[in-house]
């Protein structure tokens, strides 16, 4: 850009803001002379837009859970603004820390700032407990951006989904803030300083302990429809099936995320859930697996990350299926830890290149055979 000469050492930063405001005036130098209007900024902003319904509902639900549990009798807007105010610091910390590292790394590499963090930064607050201390969040963001993204070369080069690694970092480093039955309902800032935290287990935890009422179809105090609408405790973004499906619709319609991964992940989850039912591992019907915990959120927003997912179309079916299947396996046959989605996706992120390798090898050997018979 024009500013490059005047500000040689921080031109990445200048460029980032410059191209954020105006489309670069670069013209094609080689290759196709005309180019499509799409760029990565647009792709990324589409994902953020798809996340907005889940985020908005999540904010309302933060207030709702606090209000219900502590008998506060708040109105709709009170609930929403409580959630909004609780979430804002998380977003600010996530973006400030993440983008600072992203800008610095781009500067070191001498490249333009990549917009991948727009999505990661939005995802992280949605998948952690809302009362997580901000310094922990900052630490997790820094860890995942540096060690999962930048050391590999930035967006497009990473092996694991950075947002999930941030969550995994928190989960293993600070388990008391990340698991148990009292972390999912916010009481900070609600004027509840002296009040003891009330236990509010997520449906997933309740189901894990076997409290499923086959007659009413309720998991603890939560009915199926509660879980479907999302009026349950959990990570901010993950609770409402409706909001997530709205996002899925946007992602599939725009083609940004692969519907094959979403569908096969759900199929994998249903199948293992059903097998678990048959084997007596759980009494919960298999389709409950989709509405409890982070399964659907993970299937729609995390497993479909085009960088860390399988890249071949056949590979996407396999990858998605295994994500869903493994997540439910962990849920059903794991004594201590009931949310398998995070680790299932991270494991399959690791395996995705292998899946692709197998698909591509099968394809090339089929081509080689065709050559012999032709």
């Amino acid at each position, binding site marked *: 850009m024009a500013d490059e000469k005047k500000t040689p050492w921080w031109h990445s930063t200048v460029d980032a803001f410059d191209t954020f405001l105006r489309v670069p005036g670069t013209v094609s130098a080689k290759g196709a002379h*005309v*180019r499509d209007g799409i760029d990565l900024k647009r792709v990324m902003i589409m994902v953020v837009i798809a996340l907005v319904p889940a985020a908005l509902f999540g904010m309302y639900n933060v207030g709702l859970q606090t209000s219900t549990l502590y008998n506060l009798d708040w109105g709709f807007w009170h609930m929403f603004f409580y959630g909004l105010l609780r979430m804002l610091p998380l977003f600010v910390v996530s973006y400030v820390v993440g983008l600072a590292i992203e800008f610095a790394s781009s500067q070191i590499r001498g490249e333009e700032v990549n917009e991948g963090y727009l999505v990661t930064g939005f995802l992280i607050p949605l998948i952690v407990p809302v009362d997580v201390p901000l310094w922990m969040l900052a630490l997790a963001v820094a860890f995942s951006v540096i060690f999962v993204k930048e050391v590999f070369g930035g967006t497009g080069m990473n092996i694991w989904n950075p947002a999930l690694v941030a969550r995994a970092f928190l989960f293993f480093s600070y388990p008391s803030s990340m698991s148990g039955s009292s972390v999912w309902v916010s009481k900070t800032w609600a004027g509840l300083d002296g009040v003891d935290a009330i236990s509010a287990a997520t449906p997933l935890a309740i189901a894990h302990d076997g409290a499923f009422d086959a007659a009413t179809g309720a998991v603890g105090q939560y009915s199926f429809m509660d879980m479907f609408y999302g009026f349950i405790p959990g990570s901010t973004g993950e609770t409402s099936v409706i909001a997530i499906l709205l996002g899925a619709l946007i992602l599939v319609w725009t083609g940004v995320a692969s519907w094959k991964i979403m569908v096969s992940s759900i199929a994998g989850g249903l199948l293992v859930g059903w097998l678990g039912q048959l084997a007596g591992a759980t009494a919960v019907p298999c389709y409950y697996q989709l509405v409890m915990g982070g399964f659907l959120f993970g299937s729609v927003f995390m497993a479909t990350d085009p960088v860390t997912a399988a890249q071949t179309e056949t590979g996407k079916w396999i990858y998605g299926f295994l994500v869903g299947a493994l997540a439910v396996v962990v849920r059903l046959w794991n004594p201590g830890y009931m949310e398998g989605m995070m680790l299932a996706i991270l494991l399959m992120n690791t395996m995705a290149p292998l899946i692709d390798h197998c698909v591509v090898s099968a394809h090339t050997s089929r081509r080689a055979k065709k050559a012999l018979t032709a």
Partner: protein
Amino acid sequence: MSNNLDLKKGLNIPIKGVAAPEVIKTVVPDIVAVKPTCFKGLVPRLLVKEGDAVKAGSPVMADKQRPEILLTSPVSGTVQQIVRGEKRKLLAVLIKADAKQEYVDFGSKAPADAAQVKELLLNTGLWGSLIQRPYGVLADPQAAPKAIFISSFSTAPLAADTDYTLVESMKDIQAGVDALGKIAPVHICVRKAGSAFGGIKNATLHEVSGPHPAGNVGVQISHIAPIRKGEIVWTVSLLHLAAMGHVINTGKLDLTRKVAVTGPAAAKTGYVVALPGTPVKDITDIKEGVRVVGGDALTGENLGAEGYLGFFEDQLTLLKEGYKREWLGWAKPIRPKVYSSSWCYFSWLTPRKKYNMDTNLHGGPRAFVETKCFEDVTPMDIFPIYLIKACLASDIEKMEKFGIYEVLPEDLALCDFVDPSKNEIQAIIQKGIDLMIKEMA
């Protein structure tokens, strides 16, 4: 072997400025350039010097390694200037045309066997029109191709409509097919339903339908008779096939063609009758800030306003240079003036709309993120992203496995277009091909 191909993948780019089927101008040759740079794999050796008189069909230069391959003058006149670039690289020989054209007589007799066909093509300079795959280089006269493929139509953006430009040359085309058939079996791909070239004899005809790049000969070959390691296929354009037939029928080399002047920045679109090597400014008026592309907007060469029409080109695409910067372009809900094949914008609402495209990249270069878009525009049995990455890694073994023999950059030109990360896919593939040529020689 199927005779029909219905391709689904691909993309027709809705760009403004199609040439209406009428001749708007006939250029009387004045200065004509013979450009050795048009031919990949040719190392030119000059056969003329400034001041020499040449006829239409007289040799101007030859290949250094294979001196039987000649490049000939398309006009009769006097060699006016030898243009050289850096390191004295030969760029062009400029010939000042005579008022009255004289032709070398090649004898109007149908060649009897393959040797005679080759000799005629070499002598007339039409050998240069034969392209050898893999790698897309100048055909080797010693090679034994398993087939010769001809695509009778182009699906490239705003390409010249051969149904209009060459329909009167049917007799010449048939003579060309008959001659090439003596070297190897000839396959001709015609547009499905209503092609003017459905009646060609002595060749296997294939009906092809589908969006761009269905008209690319490489895509057609990959479906009809994929090129494997060690195999050789030659291709030739219908335009040059007609020129070959013309030599056989009349004994004269006549490279005159109807050049489609197209593109959103063209002062006037339509067809201009001109020779290869004609200065582009003689063909059309060029405004300030306009890029003159010889060929189509995806694969063409930036000729520059002072450039000359290439040997293979029957199209000029005029595009405005897109230096203008749009405020918050990527964030706007709707950008009615910018086309995107992606559903992240709303171009799908107006499927018939043609766009005033310019040369702006519409974004900055990034690492690969979205890669399914490549597969959606590549109707071939390959994984484009794996081939691209193998080329980037200079991994010969993988390039072979992933189909480097089957592709030329033009076959993956749409990947350039659709990539949100703005990678130069054609350049990457060309780099891979260049490496293959070097390593496999």
